[in-house]
């Protein structure tokens, strides 16, 4: 009996080797495993065997069935693969898919968002204010009185004698401090205007300024924060240096340079041969600014910083002509998809 099972199995294997289509494979399945298949029929003869033989043969038949089933299903997989390849193609899979339009932010917006995201992750929240501003908020409250030479640092657009287009987003700092008590940790992004138009200046540009007021903030903290920000934005090995400078609303004031990424510090056109590129202005909030908004400079200290988005955008993308920013040429905008 066991011999017979063995023969049936080897015959089935032989047929499986030869079969080349799915229909033939199904015939094999039916002729061995179907209701009247060889292995099924032999199972029915079990009754004629002695009680000792019965479990041995039964077990052997079941094993043979399982083996065959697996072989058939394997064969089926291979046949299916080859069959589909040989049939006529329904699709040209190389044709491009049906994509919708893809839009893009203006590169200025992309960089502005990126910078805002870094500072929000550091606990700053966004504040906003008017673009047409009172002289008081744009200058006076920021420790820039009317006859101060520092007014020359910024060419101002005037709407009337005491109304200007804001020359920086600093007035937002004043408005926010007037409304809220410390602690305070804000960034103020937005458009600013200066009466200046040439190859390196557009009369409108974008700034982000930050302000952090609390007890015990120091210049050392300002350094820590800005180095962290610049290394996040540019790269972890960006060199950063702080130089003393002058802004009426901060003291001490600093200009912040990064090591030139174009030449690696050896000097090139971008860094005017110095190896450094100026990217930020910063400093400790001037006590007079605190007094102007009713904060006690003996109790609170704070730092502030400001940067131009156009500059960061130029450095990130290597844009070499700032006039492109406001021409809104689609060939320019499309590059930032």
């Amino acid at each position, binding site marked *: 009996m066991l011999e017979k099972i063995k023969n049936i199995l080897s015959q089935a294997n032989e047929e499986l080797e030869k079969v080349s289509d799915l229909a033939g494979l199904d015939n094999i399945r039916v002729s061995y495993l179907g209701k009247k298949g060889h292995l099924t029929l032999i199972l029915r003869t079990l009754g004629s065997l002695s009680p000792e033989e019965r479990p041995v043969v039964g077990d052997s038949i079941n094993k043979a069935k399982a083996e065959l089933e697996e072989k058939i299903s394997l064969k089926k997989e291979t046949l299916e693969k080859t069959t589909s390849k040989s049939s006529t193609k329904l699709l040209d899979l190389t044709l491009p898919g049906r994509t919708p339009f893809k839009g893009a932010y203006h590169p200025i917006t992309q960089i502005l968002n990126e910078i805002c995201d870094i500072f929000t992750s550091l606990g700053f929240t966004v504040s906003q204010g008017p673009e047409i501003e009172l002289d008081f908020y744009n200058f006076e409250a920021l420790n820039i009185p009317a006859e101060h030479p520092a007014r020359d640092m910024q060419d101002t657009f005037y709407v009337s004698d005491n109304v200007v287009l804001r020359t920086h987003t600093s007035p937002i700092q004043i408005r926010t401090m007037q409304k809220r008590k410390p602690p305070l940790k804000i960034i103020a992004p937005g458009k600013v205007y200066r009466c200046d138009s040439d190859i390196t200046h557009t*009369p409108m540009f974008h700034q982000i300024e930050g302000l952090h007021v609390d007890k015990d903030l120091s210049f050392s903290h300002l350094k820590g924060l800005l180095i962290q920000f610049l290394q996040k934005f540019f790269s972890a090995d960006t060199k950063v240096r702080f130089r003393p400078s002058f802004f009426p609303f901060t003291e001490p004031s600093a200009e912040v340079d990064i090591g030139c990424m174009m030449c690696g510090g050896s000097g090139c056109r971008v860094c005017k041969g110095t190896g450094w590129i100026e990217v930020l202005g910063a400093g400790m909030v001037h006590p007079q600014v605190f007094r102007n908004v009713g904060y006690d400079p003996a109790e609170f200290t704070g730092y502030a910083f400001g940067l131009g988005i156009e500059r960061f955008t130029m450095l990130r993308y290597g844009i070499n002509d700032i006039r492109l920013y406001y021409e809104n040429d689609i060939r320019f905008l499309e590059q930032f998809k």
Partner: protein
Amino acid sequence: MKVSYSGLKEFIPLNISETELSYSLTMKGIEVEDISVIEHEVILTVDKPPAKDYIFELSVTPNRMDCLSFMGIARELAAIYDISFHNKKIEIDYKEPYKLNLTVPISIQNSDLCGIYVGVVIDKVKIGQSPEWLKKFLENIGVRSINNVVDITNYIMFQWGQPLHAFDFDKLEGHEIIVRNAREGEKIKTLDGKERILDSSMLVIADKYNPVGIAGVMGGESSEVTTDTKTILLEAAWFLPQSIRKTAKKLKLPSEASHRFERGVDPEGVMDACKRAVKLLCDICGGAQTSQFITANGNLPKRKRIIFKPEKARKIIGAKLKDNEMINILRRLGIDIISHDIDNFILSPPLRRFDITEEIDFIEEISRIVGFENIQATYPKTPVFIQPEEPLYKLETSAKDILKNLGLFQVINYSFTNPKNIKNFAVSESDKRINTISLQNPISYEQSEMRTFLLPQIVENIQHNIAFNKRDLRLFEVGKVFIKDDNTSPLPLEEIHAAVVLTGRKYPPSWTYPNENVDFYDIKGMAEYFLNFFSETGIEFMEGNNTDEPFMLADAHLDIFYNNIKIGYLGEISPNILKNYDILTKVFAFEINLLPFSDINKHYKRFQPLPRFPNISRDTAFILDFNLSSQEILIYILQKNIEFLNNIDIFDVYTGKNIEKDKKSLGIRFNYMSDERTLTDSEVDEIHNSLIEEVLSKFDAKLRD
């Protein structure tokens, strides 16, 4: 400002390279923008002329007037390197002659505006060329040599920081000097040959009758030193900075002298500079001093006493600096220590340091000289606190986000625009958008008015791109417009607008999409989709009144309302308007004021239980009068409040074959549902059929077969 290496060496011993010097100055706050090398030999008054010299181009911040001279920079270097600063040239060289008989009446009438006025007369002056060394000195720092007298005054100004002026003494009527305010409308011809009309706020130097110079700004032509001049009166003075600044600004007459006076020259250095000049005038021009230094005094600033707490400095800088280390730095900068106890120092800065008026100014000086590079970077121990959000920023960023994700490109235009745009867009006289805010000092006419709506500039963007044969354009802008406010606020209303324009293809160029152009329903759908993000209720579209938006095509635009207030418009821009911008294709647009959405309270959605029983739908197509709006039928059906009718929507609109000319077919899907049970087909049929009958008779409609 330029200084030369050799010029600095006259004040201090320098044995550092030009690169190190440049680095030190830059890192201490005086940025060196450029270094140039002078190869040829420079002959100087010092014994050994260097074969090579370096010229440093410096950028001096406006608070550091005291650094606008060779002496100032030398003093700064002395403080940085802790070396002694010596000006050997003065007291040693100058000896006042014995008999000086001449006196000149000098008076100050406005002692607030003039702190001190020193006049000295020098006779027998021979006007001629300057010696070679002086010419070279001036040439190196970019100043033209004029004659020996003028060159000497310039030399003193650049080297010592004190502007001087030389009058032809014989041309001063009455041989008298009066420092007074100008009379209203008084005239003077300045050295540049131009006649200036003065007002009473301006300070002038006058002789007995007339102004001979505008104080601190420019001398007058009538008393100019010429080749015939024999006797000069040399002026050295201190004027109130604010006054000089106002005058120079009003007259649009900035000069090297006013640049210094308006920042404040050293009140303690006026006399020294004057003596030095007299010495040179005698040595170089063969002159002889014939008067004493005649001095008239006004209100000169006085030295202040300011408290300094070392602990405060450590707190602000965030570095562990020792008391004596800090005090030593301040002493190097010429600041006197008056007294001190354990926690406080009483300090007195020199008068030339106009920038030092309170404690923080000492702290800045200390941090600067210590060097920012020597202050360690640390991180603040910030307490955790939640701050209020800025609703307008959120509004703006989400608008940009939605539109970008709709496949549009963001443009950013200037906030100022061409006044011609308002005319081109035919904005009516009664429209608030015509009331633009003008700039007093625009860059150009094309950028002289603040925009009151976004559409014109974004249409200009289309014009620009079409010129480069880019015709498939999908652009948006989100930004502020500026509306004159009727109320008393001095500031305008700033609205945040979002604008979209579509022109050209409906789909991306592709083998698979139909080659169709955008139409009205593209812009309407986009507006609907966009607005839905801001509010799911209260938005209405109404057929536009053409007088409101004269730039939109009469039959193809809608006004957009939110809670019954108009917030914008959508549709097709009128071809008549587009012609002004050479645009011949159809352009669809919307513009929406987002401000009304800023006070929408954050409302969280509430979950609705899912319907427990299935929906049964019936589709019916009606043949209707072509002019009947679909909205009218939908509203009619909904207002009947039919039981189980859950919602309806339009699935088909058709005109053309098999439909009469002035008719259209409108296919409506009716969805029926109950909350309590599954509806049977027959009961739905009964409800639906009777509803259809009502619609047919109401609108005189037929069913489409």
